[in-house]
């Protein structure tokens, strides 16, 4: 009972979606804990949005990002453009470098902010919260991927646009639909790859950080970031079969610079099929790895071990 003269405050308005979680009248705690599939889905979607939020929102909160993530990477790409200019290379090679420079934005994001992320979260003390929360941890990985995709898209677009204008890159595209499909599939495969590595790194300590270092220049080399991957022979073929960056880049270059002729690699439609297989495989593997690594980390007491 409220004391005389003191008005009871009106209950705070509750959003309809929120009612599904806290306002549902149930007969017992057991029934309340037993969520419907719709509730589970809504909860996981909210987790995806919640995990993507800091990455998207963070873009507006760190002004230095504009300089360090948009302008300076363009200058790095320019270095390789000038290498080709110094060698009097055909104009299409400048385009190769520009596309490679744009795609490094996604690769770096996958390596730094997907693969190594759960390791950072462990060091920061967030990982145990993820596992203790009533959600599927895969939704955290999806949220990271969505947020990361937004972050790196801006950098990639900046490099592509500025470099195309400054260096006068002329694309010769005959199959727009396939090019767009390959681009989307490449991103899906890349972030699936990142999710798989993130699951793997749950178990790891500082070696995760050093492995991310190993996954930059060596991967750029075998993926043919600045030259046609077909020129690497067997190593290039292996990269096309295993690394989404390699196969995606090669397919996009074949589609964006039709005039360069045969590259010695599979046709773009075959490479797009490889990307589909990679996407399904990596995301499936990520799910399995996340589950098994969580089990193992729980048994070995590694989920909360920090600064190792």
């Amino acid at each position, binding site marked *: 009972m409220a004391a005389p003269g003191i008005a009871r405050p009106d209950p705070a308005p509750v959003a309809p979606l929120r009612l599904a979680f806290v306002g549902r009248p149930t007969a017992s705690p057991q029934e309340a804990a037993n969520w419907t599939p719709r509730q589970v889905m809504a909860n996981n979607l909210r987790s995806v949005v919640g995990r993507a939020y*800091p*990455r998207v929102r*963070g873009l507006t*909160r*760190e002004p*230095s*990002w504009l300089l*360090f*993530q948009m302008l*300076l*990477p363009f*200058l*790095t790409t*320019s*270095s*390789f453009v*000038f*290498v*080709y*200019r*110094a*060698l*009097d*290379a055909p104009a299409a*090679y400048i385009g190769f470098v520009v596309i490679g420079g744009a795609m490094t934005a996604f690769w*770096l994001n996958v390596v*730094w*902010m997907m693969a190594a992320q759960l390791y*950072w*979260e462990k*060091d*920061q003390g*967030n990982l145990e919260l993820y596992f203790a929360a009533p959600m599927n941890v895969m939704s955290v990985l999806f949220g990271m991927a969505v*947020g990361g995709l937004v972050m790196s898209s801006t950098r990639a677009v900046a490099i592509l646009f500025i470099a195309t204008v400054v260096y006068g890159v002329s694309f010769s595209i005959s199959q727009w639909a396939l090019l767009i499909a390959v681009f989307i599939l490449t991103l899906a495969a890349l972030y699936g790859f990142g999710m798989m590595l993130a699951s793997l790194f749950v178990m790891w*300590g*500082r*070696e995760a950080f*050093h*492995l991310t*270092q*190993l996954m*930059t*220049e*060596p991967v*750029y*080399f075998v993926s043919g*970031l*600045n*030259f*046609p991957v077909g*020129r*690497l022979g067997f190593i290039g073929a292996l990269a096309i079969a295993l690394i989404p960056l390699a196969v995606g880049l090669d397919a996009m270059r074949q589609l964006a610079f039709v005039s360069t002729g045969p590259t010695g690699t599979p046709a773009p439609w075959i490479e797009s099929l490889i990307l589909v297989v990679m996407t399904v495989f990596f995301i499936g593997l990520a799910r399995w790895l996340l589950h098994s690594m969580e089990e193992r980390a729980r048994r070995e007491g590694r989920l909360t071990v920090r*600064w190792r």
Partner: protein
Amino acid sequence: MIDRGVLRSHRFDPARASGRGTIDVLRSFRTAASLGWKMEANWTDPVLFFIYSVAKPVASALILVFMLQVIAGPAGIALRPFVIVGSALWSFVVSGVAGLAWAVLDDRERYRMLKYIYVSPSSFITILLGRGIARLAVGAMGAGITLAVGVLVLGVPFDLVAVDWPLLGIVLVLGVITISALGVVMAAVCLQTRQESWDYPEVVVGALFLVVGAVFPLSVLPVPLQVLGLISPLTWWIAGVRLALFQGGPSSIGGPGSLWQQLSGELNPTSVQVAAALLLTGAVVTLVSAVLFRAGEARAKDRGLIDRTTGS
């Protein structure tokens, strides 16, 4: 009862608070360097550590070698020494600059020790330099192995007797100081920024890569970029090492039509000119970096950034 004799023997010695000057600085530096090395190296066995340390610089060099091969074919072999030396030295620059910045981010964001280090009696900059020296050592190892791979595997002609050792010694010492100064600037920047700035050092160094003539001569750049290159100490450092190791090879600074030729009337700079330019530009960068670091440190302290942690 308090024994006055005991009190007298434990009397506070003001000299202890003022420290022992250089001895304390050296001890802080040694301890920080030792800690940095352990953090860099003790996460795995030595063989794996070695592989991880050299894979990145060797791969960087191979990217450029393949670009040469694809465009120039067999004619590109003549340019390999130029590209491999530049690429190897650049991996050293990346490690040196990133080491100090990562020390800030590691200690603030990951281990959350920066505030304790900051309030310790040791000089903050001394500890940062000590932490950074470990990564510089890893970078030096990577650069050395890349050069060795260039000579032994990629057929770069190299004659130990023909090396200009005095010039090499001078430019290496001046180069390490300059690279550390750039690292200090990046550390000051990372004191201000969020956790996502892990890749800022590499991005900044990647941008500098454009103007220093590491893998192509400055003469192919537009004149304003050539000016930037000529005032960068890294340009003179790379040119100096190249000149010391491969005398008579192509210069990254001079050459027909270069800004250097227009300004000096000579085709290529001499050893003395390179060393003097490195000394001058390096001194300016080092002084400016000290000022910037002090300003960055004061701003971080003022805004409470030294114990801030962020996530994304």
